[in-house]
């Protein structure tokens, strides 16, 4: 038994790693994704290209604009003087927001009337627009507070002004860096796509080329064949997970507060579901092209509805219930919990338990199906 296992494992490892380009790809793929997610996948908005359209040009309007530009977020890129220019900067997407102050702003403000500022946001990306709008409202709010305070103090009679001071503190990710949130998730995305795609295609390939028959007539037992087929990809996926963790922690300084052992353990558990799914896809696909498309059919919903980029709490109720069956959802909570929150089994067991159940169920079902196909 051991000898046969050893033989098939050696064969499979050789087969996967024979092509030096394959080795490169297996190594480059996580590297590239970590770098991209580390540098590019950034939803933190620290830099808002702003166009300023000041038709009032009074002391008051300039003061308001100054409070925008003093906040480190709004970077004045354009000073514009006509409606046509306003259209152009928004059409071309050069500016995310146009701050437009019409004539009479200063006069109205001094006369104690409502003064208007028009903020034109590029709403194509509603999420960015929402963040920009939040920043703008904060700036305008504090400007307004400041003016009211000045007015109150100017009377000389009001000395005590009641106000609420907000002291906010972010836990786990003090500087609110989205990289810290996304990078640990890259482990999940790589492990998922690698184990699924490689497993499904490698098995179908043997069928396509006709070498599967040779394996079947060998003295290998079906279970040994399955383990031999799945093992190399599990090992590769685990190595990639470790590589990503090392890169993330040492290059990008992602906090790692939990236990590495728990991370590896839960990755193994999670791998049961993806390897099982890959095996299943291989039993229903006749060609590698079909296997690849099936993997994408499976991967995309799993990935998109996992909370990786889009928070589950924002999804419609029905879909939120559907995500209960999504293994990636639990795995992501575990990974992020280990990296950012440093929580252990005591908090994470409600995530680990469904993973174990799903993993065993998938791998057993797929193996049975695979055996039947062989027989």
């Amino acid at each position, binding site marked *: 038994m051991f000898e046969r296992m050893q033989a098939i494992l050696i064969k499979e490892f050789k087969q996967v790693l024979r092509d030096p380009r*394959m080795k490169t790809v297996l190594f480059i793929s996580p590297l590239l994704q970590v770098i991209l997610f580390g540098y590019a*996948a*950034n939803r933190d908005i620290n830099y808002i290209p702003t166009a300023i359209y000041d038709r009032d040009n009074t002391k008051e309007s300039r003061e308001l604009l100054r409070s925008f530009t003093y906040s480190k977020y709004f970077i004045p890129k354009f000073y514009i003087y006509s409606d046509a220019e306003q259209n152009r900067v928004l059409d071309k997407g050069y500016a995310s927001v146009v701050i437009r102050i019409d004539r009479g702003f200063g006069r109205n403000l001094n006369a104690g009337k409502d*003064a208007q500022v028009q903020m034109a946001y590029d709403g194509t990306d509603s999420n960015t627009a929402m963040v920009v709008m*939040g920043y703008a409202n*904060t700036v305008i709010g504090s400007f*307004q507070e400041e003016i009211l305070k000045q007015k109150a103090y100017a009377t000389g009679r009001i000395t005590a002004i009641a106000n609420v001071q907000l002291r906010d503190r972010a*836990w786990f990710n003090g500087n609110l*860096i989205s990289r810290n949130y996304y990078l640990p998730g890259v482990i999940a995305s790589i492990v998922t796509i690698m184990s699924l795609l490689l497993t499904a295609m490698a098995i179908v390939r043997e069928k396509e080329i006709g070498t599967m028959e040779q394996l079947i007539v060998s003295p290998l037992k079906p279970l040994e064949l399955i383990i031999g087929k799945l093992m190399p990809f599990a090992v590769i996926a685990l190595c990639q997970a470790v590589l990503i963790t090392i890169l993330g922690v040492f290059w990008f300084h992602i906090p790692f507060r939990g236990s590495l052992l728990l991370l590896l353990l839960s990755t193994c558990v999670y791998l049961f579901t993806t390897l099982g799914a890959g095996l299943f896809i291989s039993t229903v696909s006749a060609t590698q092209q079909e296997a690849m498309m099936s993997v994408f059919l499976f991967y995309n919903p799993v990935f998109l509805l996992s909370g990786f980029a889009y928070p589950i709490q924002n999804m*419609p109720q029905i879909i939120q219930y559907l995500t209960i069956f999504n293994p990636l959802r639990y795995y992501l909570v575990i990974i992020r919990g280990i990296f950012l929150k440093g929580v252990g089994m005591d908090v994470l067991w409600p995530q680990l338990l469904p993973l174990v159940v799903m993993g065993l169920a998938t791998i057993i079902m797929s193996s049975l199906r695979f055996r039947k196909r062989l027989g």
Partner: protein
Amino acid sequence: MNLKRIRAISNKEFIQIRRDPRSLGLALGIPIILLLIFGYGLSLDIDHVPMIVWNQDASSVTTRDFLLNFKNSKYFRIVRYTDNYRDIERMIDRGQVMLALIIPKDFSHYLESGKTAPLQLLVDGSDSNTATIAMGYVRAVVSQYNINLLSKTLADYGLNPPQAIDARPRLWFNMAFTSRWFIIPGVLSMIMMIIAALLTSLTVAREWERGTMEQLVSTPVKAPELIVGKFIPYFIIGFFDLFIGVLMARFLFGVPFRGSYFLLVILSAFFLTGALSQGILISTVARTQLLASQMAVLTTFIPTMLLSGFIYPIFNMPQAVQAITYLIPARYYIVILRGLFLKGSDMSTLWDEAVFLLLFALIMFTIAVRKFKKRVA
């Protein structure tokens, strides 16, 4: 190039696709599923942020009034009131709440005596994007509350009516302010890329693997003919996917289409040609389907997801990465799709994107033909 030979090759390819109806079904089914997920399932619009409140000053009317601002807002959902810190810690650890608002004991006392009352907010910062937006909501509530307090004080002293700055937000291009309008055009470009590049990336490698390439090479078919013949069927599938996608966007999701359909077809043809050529190039270089699939994911799928501005705004990226995004065709195609759908752009604003896509297509095609010739020889 000889039309007859191209037809022969594309016929062969058509037959091969037809014999594998499941792949064809998937090529048409995946776009529909992706669009449904993105259209119905995903939203980046954040409201009903779950929140826990510890009001240490619960006996006062002031704090209850203050909390009404949160209770009556659709942006917050108060999950629970508590009277200890342990609950807060536990619920944030488990991810059951994102915000914890702590009103200190003498909150109302401070306010009534005209002093500054501290208010503590704890935020689960793991998802920094959502956290930033949620914190913005809280700041807005507090700021408005302060302004009201000030105005009241001024009025108490008989001063003239308080001024207000009326920030009139106007959302361009996306009046409904839904991320769906933004996402759907992006999804379309991702679908086109997946279908075009992934499907074709295997076609040449498959011939190598099965040994049928030798047979093809020994026929009088020339390299460019073979490549054109191979990608005609996929070109048609790609356009069919685009057609389904635009129909779903328009009629199922109500995304407006403000540009010209003619431009959409022309520019999509540029994009598809580039993507298909890239797929064929990968396939030629890789020779095995396993490797080809990995290379296709790496060079087409991932950059399209991450570097095209589809999800992550390009202006946020560091300069060096921004420079790389200029090489990603999806970047231009997304600008074109968003322009045509949301902004009603025409050639005068889109010409630079169009030129790039055309260049990309030509270059990719040339390289693919060259590489192929070399491989065969």
